[in-house]
């Protein structure tokens, strides 16, 4: 039956002959493990396209919305964080694979006549891979994306003559980034680059087939092999290794989502993606009027050198063991790249930005509401009003009470006849009554999900009336600084010490000292550390 279907297809399309042709291509006797990287790069590209399309199914390409939709993908969708992980880490791994592929071709001298054109196409493919990375970096629209891309566009604006035109093409006025730049990066990333890259990759493969896999000198005396099955097997094994690394990273290393892009945030330390860190570091070496040397001259010279390689080295094919010159060039380049990257990493302070895709509603509700949830729990209200379920009393997460405040306060004091007296103070009861009458959707989530330690911290915060002077999650006074994001700005020890002796840590501080007992200190510090920047 299957045979008949295949025959029918073959007769009308010739697909079987074509496949046969493809698989039983001659390859030189020396072909082997060193030539598997091209296949891996192709699979990496295909996977980027598939995962990119999957992301696009739930991604809104507008600043702000883009950020919310990525958060939705990461926090709400099944396997969403894995799909984003596959796309994000897939991009990084693809760059490694593509560069290794280029190094192999370079060391073996596979760019020599008649394969110069394929080297050039390969160089363009490499650059396109990098532009993919650069344009994709902006799309999550978090601080990393915004500030990283700001630096990139500013560098482009330095280009002599072309600078202003480049900026206009990117929709950027004076190097700043707004809606127009954003959608242009998006258009480049999903409309221009993918089809262009596919076409070039096909051309790359066509040229490979036209000239064949590059032989070494002794291949002339040896019989040729077929592409299938031995070389296909090696390609498959290499692709499988790539697949294991990629899936492992996508599952185990969560791609963080920082705070939404904030042009007024002066505390953020912008860094490019790891593969561009060397360029970032070069900029530190060339200062003042020489800056353009590092930002544009050297990178462009390197690109020009890459394109000229087959025309600079025109000798006969040699054994790979004899290509010491090529090996030295690769080693020098690797050392330079590695040294610059290592230096850049070493001088980057560790990131303390909260991963916003992991932030729970209880971290974002006003402290009064979280403390009220604490009063509810402290007085065991949940033994009758079971949250999320029906109990002896109504499920208050489902039903807004319509009782007047006085009724509620009496009810708190004595919920049922002969009940044990309430442990709450009059102020706390009032807080609980306000919460009962009016609560937000995030507070409903927090009601069931907020951890006990955070709730306890909120009670300490309320009990000491920190909100009289400080803002937290949108409520409180303006006398002291806002406390959102303290955990991202300060170390725990700083906060703990500051409570007891404010002026020692912040000279001139007007805050009175607070001598908490060990338990309360632990609670309020943990709670404050958990509240992200707004």
């Amino acid at each position, binding site marked *: 039956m299957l045979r008949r279907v295949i025959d029918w297809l073959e007769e009308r399309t010739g697909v079987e002959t074509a496949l046969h042709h493809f698989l039983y291509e001659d390859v030189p006797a020396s072909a082997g493990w060193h030539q598997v990287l091209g296949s891996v790069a192709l699979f990496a590209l295909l996977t980027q396209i598939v995962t990119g399309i999957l992301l696009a199914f739930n991604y809104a390409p507008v600043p702000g919305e883009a950020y919310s939709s990525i958060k939705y993908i990461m926090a709400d969708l099944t396997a969403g964080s*894995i799909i984003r992980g596959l796309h994000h880490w897939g991009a990084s791994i693809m760059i490694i694979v593509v560069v290794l592929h280029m190094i192999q071709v370079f060391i073996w001298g596979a760019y020599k006549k008649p394969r110069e054109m394929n080297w050039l196409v390969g160089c363009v493919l490499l650059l396109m891979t990098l532009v993919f990375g650069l344009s994709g970096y902006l799309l999550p629209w978090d601080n990393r994306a915004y500030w990283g891309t700001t630096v990139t566009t500013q560098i482009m604006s330095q280009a002599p003559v072309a600078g202003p035109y480049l900026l206009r093409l990117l929709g950027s006025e004076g190097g700043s980034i707004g809606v127009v730049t954003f959608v242009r990066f998006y258009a480049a990333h999903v409309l221009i680059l993918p089809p262009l890259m596919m076409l070039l990759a096909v051309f790359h493969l066509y040229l490979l087939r036209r000239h064949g896999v590059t032989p070494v000198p002794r291949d002339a005396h040896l019989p040729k092999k077929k592409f299938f099955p031995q070389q296909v097997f090696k390609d498959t094994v290499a692709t499988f290794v790539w697949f294991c690394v990629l899936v492992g990273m996508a599952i185990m290393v969560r791609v963080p989502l920082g705070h939404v892009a904030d042009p007024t945030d002066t505390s953020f330390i912008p860094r490019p993606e790891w593969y561009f860190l060397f360029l970032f570091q070069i900029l530190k070496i060339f200062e003042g009027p020489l800056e353009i040397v590092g930002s544009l001259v050297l990178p462009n010279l390197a690109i020009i050198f890459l394109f000229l390689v087959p025309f600079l080295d025109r000798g006969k094919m040699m054994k790979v063991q004899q290509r010491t010159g090529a090996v030295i060039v690769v080693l020098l380049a690797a050392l330079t790249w590695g040294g610059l990257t290592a230096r850049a990493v070493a001088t980057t302070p560790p990131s303390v930005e909260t991963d916003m895709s992991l932030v729970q509603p209880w971290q974002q509700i006003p402290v009064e509401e979280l403390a009220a949830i604490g009063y509810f729990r402290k007085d065991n209200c949940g033994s009758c009003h079971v949250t999320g379920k029906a109990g002896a009393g109504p499920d208050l997460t489902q039903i807004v009470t319509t009782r007047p405040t006085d009724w509620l306060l009496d009810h708190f004091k004595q919920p049922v006849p002969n009940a044990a007296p309430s442990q709450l103070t009059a102020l706390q009861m009032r807080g609980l009554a306000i919460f009962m009458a009016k609560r937000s959707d995030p507070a409903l989530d927090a009601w069931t999900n907020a951890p006990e330690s955070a709730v306890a911290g909120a009670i300490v915060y309320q009990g000491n009336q920190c909100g009289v002077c400080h803002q937290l999650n949108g409520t409180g006074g303006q006398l002291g600084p806002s406390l959102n994001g303290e955990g991202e700005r300060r170390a725990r020890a700083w906060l703990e010490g500051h409570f007891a002796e404010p002026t020692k840590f912040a000279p001139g501080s007007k805050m009175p000292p607070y001598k908490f007992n060990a338990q309360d200190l632990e609670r309020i510090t943990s709670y404050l550390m958990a509240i992200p920047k707004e």
Partner: protein
Amino acid sequence: MDREKTTRRGFYEFLIQGLGGIIGVGLAIPGVAYLLGTPKQRKKSDWVQAADVAQLPLQVPQEVVYHRTRVDGWRVVNEKTTAWVVKMDPQTVVAYSPSCTHLGCAYHWDDPSKNFICPCHTSAFSVDGKVLAGPAPRPLDRFVIRIDGSKLFIGSQIQKT
């Protein structure tokens, strides 16, 4: 010699298909889960106060307009929504979902005939929601409701009959 070559070839082919299969399935599983999985449900308050029962006329459906927050993907929207509310008798109130059970068109109350009429495929429903004519497969869907004193609360869940 030839036989050894054949088994080795078979071994290669087996591994190529096996590893290729693992890669394909390994990427397809998260892809399918991502496309077909239900998004995490965010908790939200369900009841919206929509009308005053005391002011509803008996047996005459009222189109009640109220606002409800709804989670729409990554957005939480506060939107206008409607329900057809009927006080059947002083103790019983029903709130019908405003879409026809056939293909979801918005129906309306036709006062002369005392029926709900759907403009799309002329389904007709009685005041108690039963199908009188047309292609509608089941009676009108009802919102869950709660009456507290004389306040009518409408929930977001829909009961099908």
